[in-house]
């Protein structure tokens, strides 16, 4: 038999195979149709009842936001000085800085400057079409200033994994160092405004405030560290904490606490925009003190238009 003799045998009616073919064809057609039709189905459904997707506020960053932010920072600094002055910490003698003297009156002057600065920034913010910001910068308060107050005055309670950390061994030293850190940050923040503010007049006013803060930073640095004009001109580490790093004592004695470098009046040739590091409080079981960087404002500390004073 040859291939020419082969013929397809066609049985009459729809047999079982034919029914399968027909069913398969129908299923395929349905699948294709389901993929291509009804574009008005809407968003993907959810199971059960849930809240709607929250619409984020428009993150506007403009002159008003910059100026409101600086008003808040100035208020935070003034409030911090108020806390320090109310506690009378600067009138007490410092064991670490025996020549410091009472800096209460000086810090009162600084406080007045920052209160005035907050008013000035708010006036500029109003001119820029924004609302005034009359309270402190919430981010700066929550992340930096309040933790320092808490650590210095109360310490840290013991946990399952760490021992108790006592209050600061020298609150006067810590708070005068905090004053230096805040003045340095204020100066840096004002300088950082210059390239981002749209108007030359606003830059001028911001720099007037920044210039004063820079001088206050230099002066308090010289009060903390007399003769500390330049880096390297004298030993800039607190004498009784001369260990630059924390080292565990081999004989099980308490490790030396973190060294606290003393500030200098002229830390560089140009105005700095880098963070100012605060180190203070008592050391933990390993001798490590609290360390916080004060930085110029950025996305997480801007006072956006949709924020309101708490």
């Amino acid at each position, binding site marked *: 038999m040859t291939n020419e003799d082969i013929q397809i045998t066609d049985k009459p009616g729809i047999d079982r195979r034919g029914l399968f073919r027909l069913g398969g*064809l129908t299923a*395929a*057609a349905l699948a294709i*149709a*389901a993929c291509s039709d009804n574009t008005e189905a809407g968003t993907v459904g959810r199971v059960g009842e849930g809240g709607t997707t929250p619409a984020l506020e428009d993150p506007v960053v*403009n002159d008003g936001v910059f100026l409101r932010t600086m008003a808040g920072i100035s208020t935070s600094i003034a409030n911090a000085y108020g806390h320090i002055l109310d506690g009378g910490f600067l009138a007490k003698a410092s064991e670490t800085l025996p020549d410091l003297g009472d800096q209460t009156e000086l810090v009162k002057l600084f406080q007045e400057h920052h209160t005035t600065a907050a008013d000035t920034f708010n006036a500029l913010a109003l001119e820029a079409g924004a609302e005034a910001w009359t309270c402190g910068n919430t981010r700066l308060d929550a992340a930096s200033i309040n933790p320092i107050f808490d650590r210095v005055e109360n310490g840290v309670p013991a946990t399952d994994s760490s021992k108790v950390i006592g209050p600061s061994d020298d609150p006067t030293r810590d708070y005068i160092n905090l004053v230096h850190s805040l003045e340095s940050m204020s100066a840096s923040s004002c300088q950082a405004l*210059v390239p981002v503010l749209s108007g030359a007049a606003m*830059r001028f006013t911001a720099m007037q405030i920044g210039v004063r803060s820079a001088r206050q930073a230099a002066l308090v640095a*010289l009060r903390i560290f007399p003769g500390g004009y330049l880096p390297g001109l004298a030993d800039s580490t607190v004498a009784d904490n001369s260990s630059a790093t924390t080292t565990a004592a081999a004989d099980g004695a308490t490790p030396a606490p973190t060294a606290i470098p003393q500030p200098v009046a002229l830390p560089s*040739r140009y105005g700095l925009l880098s963070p100012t590091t605060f180190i203070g409080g008592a050391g933990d079981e390993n001798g490590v003190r609290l360390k916080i960087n004060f930085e110029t404002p950025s996305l997480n500390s801007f006072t956006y238009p949709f924020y309101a004073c708490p």
Partner: protein
Amino acid sequence: MEIEVTESGAFAELSDGRQPIGRRAAVRVAAGVGLGGAALSLLPFLSGRAAASPPTSQPPNTQPVNSEPTSTEPTSTVGTTAIGATSTSAPPQRPTGDDVALLSFAQQVEATAVALYNEALKVTGWSDEQAQVVTFIRDAHLSYAQSLSGLLGRDAPNSISPEVFDAQKGGFTGAIDAVLASAGALESTAVATHGDVIAKLAGTDGASLIASIQMNEARYCTVLADLAGETDPTVLLVDEEAASLVGKG
């Protein structure tokens, strides 16, 4: 001998062109397509029943997260450029024509300060500490003049202001205390001058550089006063700034 077509699938008859399509097979295909078409015609109705409906509790005045901001204000590159629209128009970055004149004058002030501190360092009687600080300040002013030269390029004057030098030179050649007081006054003058320059500059490159210079020159006032033994905070903090040189040099 009868050989059945064993190719699977409904379109087995169409898979090979050499195989003829019989009348019955054609009827089957047509019937299948007809049934499929009937099913297709029912899909909109069926899918309308099956599809999930969006939540109906959408609050008013909300927009999808990925939609464009509704603000019609111009987008700016000021500050943090990655986020949304702002209402701040972007200032120019490079110095404008007017900026060049202002920055050139600022550079002359810095060069003049270098020349004056050179005169001061010729005076005898400096302590080591004083000499180090004054030398640091002199070198800083030299650095400022060089930075401004870099910003201005060929437009940089790279020369002192003879008027300012002649007016100030006497204060930099006397006794140490007098020289320190003159130096402090010069720094205050520079601070005021740079403040005036910042108040007039349009470009942010120049303004940023002048601001970083001005910030440190403010510190020099305090340092020089302290170096001279001054203890009054009003003097150390320069409650009264000197007059600006803009328009006088």
